[in-house]
């Protein structure tokens, strides 16, 4: 646990070592605002909820989460500190988790900074804050899943840009597998069980219920399972890259 915290602290503070972190936060908040107010028509809907805020988050995260995660391992391998890090007396597992949690903490910070929208909606009307909280929890879990994929992809390459592209690609597959368009195509030839399986792989399917305020165990388990799986992949890739020298 102390090992995880040591890594987490170093990694988290390194986000703020350059202005990039601040630029990222500003872009995130602006994009989030654009999606909520323009595309999501927050005012025109005249409803005291954050549906328009959460609806587009899976798409926003598709690009923003991989950009948080891309440097985690790629930079480490490019700079050669990979070797330094893995010869420190820390379990590899703790390093993988610590790094991931630093990215997650950064995403949580970005998400927390969207609080003005929550104040706004409470000022304009009287929303069901329970639904909003589940929405935030769902959003956080989904961010966690994106970041776990991003972290694993970051360990595949020394190049952050390549890591970013790989992560966006994998995340995209996890996203579109829930779209009606994709499901209809699959449904045209595959049995219903397969369609269901594909739909269930998607972030959209599981995030949808959470953002509407419905917490089901299966959705939470889904996101946790996705996170655990990709961190496991991350660990495997790290071990194999270590062997490759």
């Amino acid at each position, binding site marked *: 646990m*102390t*090992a995880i915290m*040591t890594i987490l*602290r*170093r990694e988290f*503070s*390194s986000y703020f*070592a*350059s202005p990039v972190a601040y630029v990222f936060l500003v872009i995130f908040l602006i994009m989030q605002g654009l999606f909520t107010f323009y595309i999501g028509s927050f005012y025109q809907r005249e409803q005291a909820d954050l549906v328009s805020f959460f609806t587009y988050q899976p798409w926003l995260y598709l690009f923003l989460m991989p950009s948080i995660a891309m440097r985690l391992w790629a930079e480490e391998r490019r*700079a*050669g*500190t*990979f*070797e*330094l890090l*893995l*010869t*420190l*007396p*820390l*379990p*590899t597992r703790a390093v993988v988790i610590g790094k991931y949690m630093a990215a997650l903490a950064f995403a949580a910070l970005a998400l927390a900074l969207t609080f003005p929208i929550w104040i706004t909606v409470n000022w304009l009307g009287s929303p069901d804050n329970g639904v909003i909280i589940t929405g935030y929890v769902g959003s956080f879990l989904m961010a966690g899943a994106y970041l776990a994929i991003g972290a694993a992809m970051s360990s595949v390459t020394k190049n952050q840009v390549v890591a970013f592209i790989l992560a966006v690609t994998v995340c995209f597959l996890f996203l579109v597998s829930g779209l009606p368009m994709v499901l209809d195509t699959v449904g045209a030839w595959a049995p219903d069980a397969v369609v269901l399986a594909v739909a269930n792989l998607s972030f959209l399917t599981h995030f949808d219920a959470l953002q509407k305020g419905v917490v089901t165990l299966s959705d939470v388990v889904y996101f946790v399972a996705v996170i655990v799986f990709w961190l496991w992949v991350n660990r495997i890739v790290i*071990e194999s890259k*270590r*062997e490759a*020298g």
Partner: protein
Amino acid sequence: MADVLLEARDLNKHFGNLKAVDGISLEVAKGEVLGFLGPNGAGKTTTMKMLTGFLAPTSGSAYICGELVTSENEAARQRIGYLPEGAPLYGEMSPASFLKFIAATHGITGREADDVVASSASAVNLEKVMGQRIETLSKGFKRRVGLAAAILHAPDVLILDEPTDGLDPNQKHEVRRLIEAMSVDRSIIISTHILEEVDALCHRAVIINKGRIVADGTPSQLKAKSKYRNAVTMLLPEDRAELAASALKSLKQIAGVEAAREGNQMRLTVLARGGGEIADTIGDIAAVSNWQVSQFTVDSGRLDDVFRQLTEGEDQ
């Protein structure tokens, strides 16, 4: 040997068909500085990576203070101070925060961490730059940060991969002085392809080539294998040189004479047959025949010559 802190038993590492390391066994005792020599690509770095647990050996094993080194065994890694090749560091951190991070990874926190950071920083003269970003530091300072990180937890074994590579002569001297000071109750292993380093620093040297140990001994033992062992080098006027050379070649103890022009003088290097002592004999002849010798030195053997002899041989 008493107090062996680092031991490698028949280490092998294969990358596909390539045998990067092919059966290396060695022991380093407490207080000993071992020079690990070899041409680029001989397997030095790979061996060191196995000694630190970064790479798993294909077969064989390494022990640090009796602990088996693996990527899982943190107890063994706790006792190693490692400076990887090129001394990679987190450029965006300051030496102070970087060293604190390293201390924390060794479980040293709070007041104690401040103490060890301060003492390791002063050991390598880092105090002036502690607050600067590492990426803005000169190469010499960066290397010192890496060294400070390696010694901070007072490890029993120091593994330094080319610690002076890329430094200027003053910085090299500085780093060597540091290593010397640290060697008192530790085992230190240094990889290098700079041969002067071995003379200046190492108690023992191991030469490897193509993943195998080809020589192991003190620097003087290794030098004794050189054809320049007890060779005499002298500087004399050009007109005398030819005469002297032909006179010397006729002597039985002398294996050969190498000549090189230096201005209007000649530098003759007289090789002793079988490394026997020829200085007295040549001195006597020189005096009697009035060769007007202006410089006269006796070689103790040349490491670079031995190094070439041992590592080039197989290629040709």
